């Protein structure tokens, strides 16, 4: 089973996770920018975060045989903090980087005016840069948040095929299915969507324009739930080819629209650089 996890926050994960993901079939990840739990107080914090997403983290992933790409954005939650408003001004530089394959995650958190403003501004940046967009749908009031997101997407004029609405569930998938946007499902342990629920949605809606991700981060989450979903699909009678489509070919197609996705590392296994700008993940003397 080959897997591209189209939404995972590896900055918050350990080297054990990278090792286990590689063993489970993960060959590529896309890491969207998001809220770090602790509110940031200045634009400079974002600059260093973005630099890490295009520098240190791809290096770390490559050490474990995984290609790493990212999406950059001002996330919905911090769009409400005036101290972070300047992030919108520095985004063009980061969106131009080679390993950036999308704008994201953007969207609504509490459905405020500031969130809508940042959402719209970043849709414009995506159109200007020709990049796909990852839209986070809110955990509270998900149906209203999804509807409002679809309205802003339509108003922006962006090709809906460049947009994924993520964290969908059985209720909101129907709102997105006819729009031409992609449908993202984040598989979580215990609550929200689990592998069995995703399989039921796939039975009803098919495998076209569907992305499945772990959305693993610093919270209760599991980076191997993409693999678990593939296995649940097989157990439910889906063919290997269906699994490959959902877990590999679909995300390759979606992010491939950037023209920048390299889903497989160029170095053969075990030959990735041991250092990034003079630093390594090794301990002790080299």
């Amino acid at each position, binding site marked *: 089973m080959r897997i591209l996890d189209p939404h995972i926050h590896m900055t918050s994960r350990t080297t054990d996770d990278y090792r286990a993901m590689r063993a489970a079939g993960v060959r590529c990840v896309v890491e969207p920018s998001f809220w770090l739990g602790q509110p940031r107080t200045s634009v400079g914090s974002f600059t260093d975060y973005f630099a890490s997403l295009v520098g240190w983290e791809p290096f770390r992933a490559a050490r474990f045989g995984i290609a790493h790409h990212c999406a950059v954005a001002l996330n919905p939650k911090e769009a409400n903090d005036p101290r972070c408003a300047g992030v919108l001004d520095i985004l*063009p530089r980061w969106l131009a980087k080679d390993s950036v394959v999308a704008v994201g995650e953007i969207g609504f958190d509490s459905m405020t005016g500031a969130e809508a403003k940042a959402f719209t501004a970043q849709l414009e940046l995506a159109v200007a840069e020709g990049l796909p967009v990852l839209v986070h749908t809110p955990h509270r009031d998900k149906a209203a948040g999804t509807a409002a997101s679809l309205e802003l997407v339509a108003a922006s004029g962006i090709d809906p095929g460049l947009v994924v609405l993520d964290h969908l569930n059985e209720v909101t998938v129907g709102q997105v299915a006819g729009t031409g946007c992609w449908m993202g499902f984040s598989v979580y342990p215990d609550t929200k969507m689990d592998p069995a629920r995703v399989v039921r949605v796939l039975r009803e809606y098919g495998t076209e324009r569907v992305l499945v991700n772990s959305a693993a981060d610093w919270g209760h989450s599991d980076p191997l739930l993409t693999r678990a979903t593939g296995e649940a699909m097989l157990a439910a009678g889906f063919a290997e080819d269906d699994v490959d489509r959902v877990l590999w070919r679909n995300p390759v197609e979606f992010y491939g629209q950037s023209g920048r996705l390299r889903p497989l590392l160029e170095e053969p296994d075990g030959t990735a650089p041991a250092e990034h700008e003079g630093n390594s993940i090794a301990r002790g003397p080299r």
Partner: protein
Amino acid sequence: MNAPGGPQREALPAGRVDAAPLRAALDQDPTPPARRWLRESQARVAAEPAAPAGLFPAVGRRCGRGVLTALPDWLTEGAARTVLLPALPPHDAGLPAEAASCHHDGDAKERRAAGRPVPPEIPPLLEHFARR
């Protein structure tokens, strides 16, 4: 993890070079769309001081990463970034903020690519940016 060593610096060749051969070499080598992109980018940099921020990281992708045929000491992307620099408007109080931040946030490759003898028409205040 090892102690951070700070950004790596490369030894720079001494002296300055004329940008004309760079332009001439760039006129032959990259594909027509790449040359068009570079021309438009030079115009944008001249008209819009914040433009380099969004252009510099894209130069390799747009213009090519290989060695310049006519000037094998140069990589295409390094030469292209270097000819983009003179279009930046001069500034009397130090580096233009956009150029400084572009350098400040550039990755090692973006810095290295510009780490070459500097064409004479680059304003002295930009030399710092061009040379690192």
